[in-house]
């Protein structure tokens, strides 16, 4: 059990940023990020035995994290006491222009539906079309088509403002 926990801890620490990015995309503030992050860790632990390394760890983590984000039950999450994340920076409050620009982009992305949001997040993270397809469960060509539509939507949103 301790060995398994150690492996789990190493995996989580290695991919902490990946998990954080998903939480950031699907949350409106730091408190929600903390809640969702914890929910994702619980789900990762539950599924850890079934992670047979058929896919890469990153793909597996994206799948669990995105499934947790879309199946977000706030009432259920508040049963588990939230442990705040250990962060010196707060991307929701940061003053520097680049972080603010990212926040504005994310605010626009948050207006997209859940699938489109997941797709654009993965694309922004530099994930390949094949891997995006494996995470979402669609073909790489379908990923390309959808991403074009999403980018068009974002351009239109930007032009409206």
């Amino acid at each position, binding site marked *: 059990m301790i060995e398994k*926990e150690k492996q*789990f*801890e190493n995996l*989580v*620490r290695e991919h*902490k*940023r990946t998990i*954080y*990015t998903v939480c950031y995309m699907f949350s409106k503030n730091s408190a929600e990020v903390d809640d969702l*992050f*914890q929910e994702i*860790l*619980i789900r*990762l*632990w*539950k*599924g850890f035995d*079934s*992670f047979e390394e058929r896919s890469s760890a990153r793909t*597996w983590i994206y*799948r*669990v994290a*995105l*499934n*947790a984000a*879309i*199946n977000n*039950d706030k*009432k*259920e999450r508040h*049963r*588990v006491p939230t*442990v705040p*994340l*250990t*962060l*010196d*920076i707060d*991307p929701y409050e940061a003053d520097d222009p*680049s*972080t603010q*620009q*990212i926040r504005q*982009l994310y605010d626009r992305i948050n207006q997209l*539906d*859940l*699938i489109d949001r*997941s797709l654009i997040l993965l694309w*922004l993270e*530099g994930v390949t079309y094949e891997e995006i397809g*494996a*995470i*979402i*469960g*669609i073909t790489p060509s379908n990923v390309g088509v959808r991403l074009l539509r999403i*980018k068009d939507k*974002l*351009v239109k949103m*930007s*032009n409206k403002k």
Partner: protein
Amino acid sequence: MENNELEEMRAQLATLNEKLEKESIVSDKHISEATKKHISELQRKLIRRIIVFSVLSPIMARYVGLYFALWCLVVIILNIYVYRVVDKGNYASASMTEYTQSVRKALKKFKRINKFMWIFSISLIMLLGIVMFIVHLHTIPKLAYSAIVVCSFFSYILWIAYYVSNVMISSKVGLMLEIIIKDLEE
């Protein structure tokens, strides 16, 4: 916002990601909380139901009748079955398409079982009322008519409760998943 702006955002995101990499983010407490045993709200509800009906069943058998004891037994068995279904599949690490379809299937299964349980309960109560009416009609008519009225009233209440429970099962999560599935199938 043009496509090259999106590319610029990608580059800026990479900068944010570099900052995040330097942060610890996860503490030992996160790991210890995550690795504790957690059961979902649905599983909690099922356990409560199983306990309540396990206590109720012998009391029903002793004081009310075997019909209700049998009803309690069926409810217990169905709830244990649903608990195992919910506990078993860890499809949370499936692709989004598989995950949403699996959750939808599980929700449908749960709805079917829930429907069966309610209809079984209501039918049993009506049957009890009818049997008591027939048995006591000539000997204690007052009891016979009271039995049919009381049982009809309880059946009516149970129908309302069934309708409400069905609506609650088609919760926000269920509806949201339907939207996602429809989007993926396009």
